[in-house]
Each structure stands twice: as C-alpha cells, then as structure tokens.
C-alpha cells in the first residue's frame, strides 16, 4: 500500500482508491441510467475514461494545424 502511494503520489493514489470504491459500490447497489445502454456494468466508468483519452488524442492531433505562433495575428 505504502509503495503504491510512494509511486503515484498521495492525490493520485486517493483518486485510484476512489475509482476502486466506486466500482465496488456498483456491485453492491443497483445503478440504472437515463438510457438502456447506461445500465451496462461499469458503463459510466468506461465512458469517462475513454472520453478523456479521445478528447486528448483529438486535441493533440488538432495542434498541428490549429496552433500557430503567438504573434500570428500581430504580423
């Protein structure tokens, strides 16, 4: 346990612990969503994780043609 905290830092380990706790909570109680797909096991967790990765990936790929020098408009 202490090795994990040392490796990832306090806040990161706390987030990791909360994620684990949320997955356990889903197993204990019955969670349902606004739509049928959401009722699948751990759906919000997967959706959140994947969304964040996709946003990051698209954002990084957009860098090449949307990002210009700081004085782009001043020239």
């Amino acid at each position, binding site marked *: 346990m202490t090795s994990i905290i040392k490796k990832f830092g306090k806040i990161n380990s706390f*987030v990791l612990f*909360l994620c684990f706790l949320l997955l356990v909570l889903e197993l204990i109680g019955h969670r349902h969503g606004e739509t049928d797909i959401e009722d699948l096991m751990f759906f919000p967790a997967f959706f959140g994780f994947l969304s964040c990765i996709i946003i990051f990936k698209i954002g990084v790929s957009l860098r090449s043609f949307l990002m210009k020098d700081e004085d782009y408009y001043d020239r």
Partner: protein
Amino acid sequence: MIDNFPPGFVMVLGALLIPFLPHIIKQIYMMILILISAYGLTLGFGIHSVINIMEFEFILFQADNLTFPFAIIFHIAAALNVIYGAHEKDWKQHVAIMSYSGAAIAAIHAGDLLTLFVWWEATAFTSVFLILAGNTNRSYKAAIRYILIQVTSGMFLLAGAIILLVNDGSAILTKFDINSLYGQLIFIAFGIKAAFPLLNGWLQDAYPESTAIGTVALSTFTTKLSIFCFAKCFAGVEILIFIGALMTFYPIFFAVIENDLRRVLTYSLNNQLGFMIVAIGIGSELAINGAVAHAFAHILYKGLLFMGMGAVLYRVGTCKASELGGLFKYMPITAVCTIIGAISISAFPLFSGFVAKSLIMSALGKEGLVFIYFMLLFASAGVLHHSGIKIPFFAFFAHESKIKTKEAPINMIIAMVIASILCIAIGIFPSVFYQILPYEISYQPYDFSHVVGQLQLLMFAALAFICLWHFKIYPPELNSTVLNSDWIYRRMIPLFIIPCINFSKKITNEIKIFFYLVLLRIKIFFANYMIKNKVFDREVGQDTLIIIQVFAIFLIFLFFLHYTSFTR
C-alpha cells in the same frame, strides 16, 4: 416613482455619478444602487411600467416567472463584481461594469422588442469599455471587432422587430415563429450573442483581452441575456437541440490545446452555453427549469473561475499555462476557491453544477434523445478535463515556475469565498434552489444511480488525465495562438479581399494614366492646331470688344424675351 423604472435602470443612471466619488464611498454607492435596483424584484409578476411614444407602447418593466431567477442572479453577480473590483481605482471600469450590469438587468425586464433592442445595444456599448480597459494594442483591436459584431447582432434584432411591427402592429416579446423571416432575423441576433458555432469568434477573441475584473463582469451578462431571450422566444425549437449539442462538443478540443487559461475558460463558457441551448431546444418544463438552473449556477462558478484566474493575472501579470505553475503555496485561498469552482463546473455531487446539469440530462433522457444525451455526457467528461483539471492544475500545481508572489487582495478573496459558499450551498440544498425556477418541480438529483454514475464518469475521466500526466504522454503547454472561427474575418476574408482591393487600385491607376494620356494628346492637338492657324496672333482692338459686348447684350435680350414668352 421608483416602481415605474425597470430594475437596472437606476444602475445605468447612477453610474454617471461614480467618477465624482472618492474610492471607498464609490463602492458603497454602487452597492446601494444594486439594492435599490433589487427592490424592483419585490413588486411581483406582471406589467409594471409602460410608456407611450409616437403611438407605440414601450413595455419597460415586465416581470414573470422567467425573469425572476435571471434578475436574482444578475443582481448577485453585480454585487460580487463590486466586491471583487473594490481595489481598482480606475473609475472608468466601475462605470462600465455598473451600467453594463444595469443594462442587462433592464433588458430581461423588457416587454417588447424595441425596448429590448435599446438595452441590447446598451449592453454592447457599455461592455466594450471593459475590453478597451485592457489598455493594450491587442485589446483595442479586439474591442473594435467586438463592438462591430455586437452592433451587427443589434441590427438583426431591429430588422426583425420592424418587420414584426409592420406585419402585426405590435412587437411584444413572446414566442416567435422560427419559419417566418422576422423569426429568423431575431434568431440570428440572439444566436450571435449566445456564441453559436461559427458566430462564436468574438467571445474567445475579446473576453480574455479585458482586465482581471472586466472579464468577470463580461462572463456573466451578455451570453446569459441571450439565453434568457432564447428561453422566452424560442423554447421548444428543435434546431436548438442540434446547435446546442454542437456547442457543447467542439469547444472542448480548442480548450484542451489553448494555453491562455482565461481563454480556456471562454471555450468552457461556450460549451456550458451549449447545455442551456439544448435544454431550451427540448422546451419541456423540466428542460426549461434545467436551462435556467444551469444559467444560474453557471454564472456563479464561471464567475468564480474567472475571479481565480483574474487574481492570478493581477498578482503575476500573466494567465498562460506555459508560464504558471506551483502557485498553491503563495495563493492557497485563491487556489482552494478556484478548485471549488472547478469541482462545481465539473458537476460533482454536492456542488451546484450537479443539481443544475442533472435536470437537463434527465430531460434529455425523458425525451429519448439518446445520441444527444451521449454527446452531452462526452462533453461533461470534456468539461472535467479542461475546466475541472486543466485550470487549477496548470495554475497552482503542475511544474514549479520561478514566480514568487503573494495572496490576492482581501476584497478579491471575499468575493471568491462568497461565490464558493453559494456554489456549495446550491449543491447541498437543491430543493431551496429549485423553488426560484420558472416551473414547479419535484425532482431529486441525489439518488444512488445518479450519484454513482456521475462519480464514475468524472473519477475515471480524472484517472485518465492522471495516467496521461504520470506517464508523460501529456505534451507541454506552448506559447501559441489557437485558430478559432474569428480566423474567418481576421485572416481568410482579408486574404481574398486585399488582392481584390489591390487589383482594383491597379486598374484605377491604369485607367487614370490612359485618360491622362488621351487628354494630353487632345490638348497638344488643339494647341498645335491653334498655333498653326495663328488664333492667338490676332490683335484684339477696342472696336472688337465693343462688337462682342453689343452682341452679348443682344443675346441676353433675346434670352429674356424667349424666357418670358415661354412662361406665359
């Protein structure tokens, strides 16, 4: 007498006295103005003031269940702005903020389109001074572009109002038909101020160029006034659902790569407006409540985030992620308040964003709009990424910068703490908050499914960010300009127009030279001809002159004779 003035009017008028007051008295005076203006909210619903000019009835003061929540939050925001800007000695900004908030408050109480138009333009002309107050060459240019676009929006509104007036004989603010010409004109006018896709350039262009306190005021009023107008005039218009979904979606990617943290917040503002527009597009009572609740909560947490970044800007002089970092140990209170704002906007349970956004998501679920629902869910993860994590992380943590500074001024802290408390209070006591919404609802945001589902979404999105950062996949922030839709009129159109202008200049020049040469030839020809025939060689004696004069008199006599006979 005060009952006859719309709320906010006293703030616009009273702002004129601000330059003549000493520093602290100025702040007290502004608070009193806001209190007097807020008195108008106690008068109840209905039409309170109408004036008749040129056989047209201007409904100056009309209150209903929709104006009420907006009026409350606009007054709270105005008061918070006064506290937040109390250290500022520049009276021009105070005059602009006071008259701007007053104009926005008066605008939501307008009962007809022409009155709305007057306040619509007033918000534009008062707010532009806040951008000018940035006092840089960039802010000056941004202010010019801003006012041009805002006035264009006003012109669309006026055109729509006049067509409606000619057709129907009245221009009362009510639900409009989107299929009519006037409806479409008014729709575009509102759409420009709500920063619709491709019409949003002014928002990200102008707001971050303002001062620390100016941006806080700007983030509150203009866009939310437009949201109010949409809720009033276009509730249930289907196309708004798609426009709104697009608005929640695409600013995320821009926010992720933007370096200026206040500009990141403007993208996030754009994304939040999308949630409200989707809700207005659905148009059910639950959805309209969601839109209003979201606007209410949004003004508080977005104001709080702008306040936090404003405090950083005030102390450090920059808001660029690439230059900031590690400020937590110098500005702990500002950091905590900003984190509360970030948690609220990410819609964590027990914070204001959650109780407001849940209404919209439930309304979407009830309507069965699954695709839009998932777009908004995706956008929610995006909000956490760029506003929830990026803003506090890059300003107060991330890498150690060499900046040494101190905590924000006490008045800024007070304003931030009040806003933070309100964000938490709304999250903890949603039933009290729901009472001010336009329609009565019995909605419970805190059930097991909602809370666990939302927490899973957010915590795992946060985990993804942590993984990206921990394994050094996240690229460093760079000093840069991110191209946005304002590129169309700042670069693309000039790219076509400047060669056209140069070409027409060249053509004009060629034509000029051509005619000059032709005329020169004619001149030379006649000169040669006359010299050849010795026209100028003849001596003109006195007798010749007398003959010419007599002939001239004879001609004049003939002319008069002809003229008089003609008139007879």
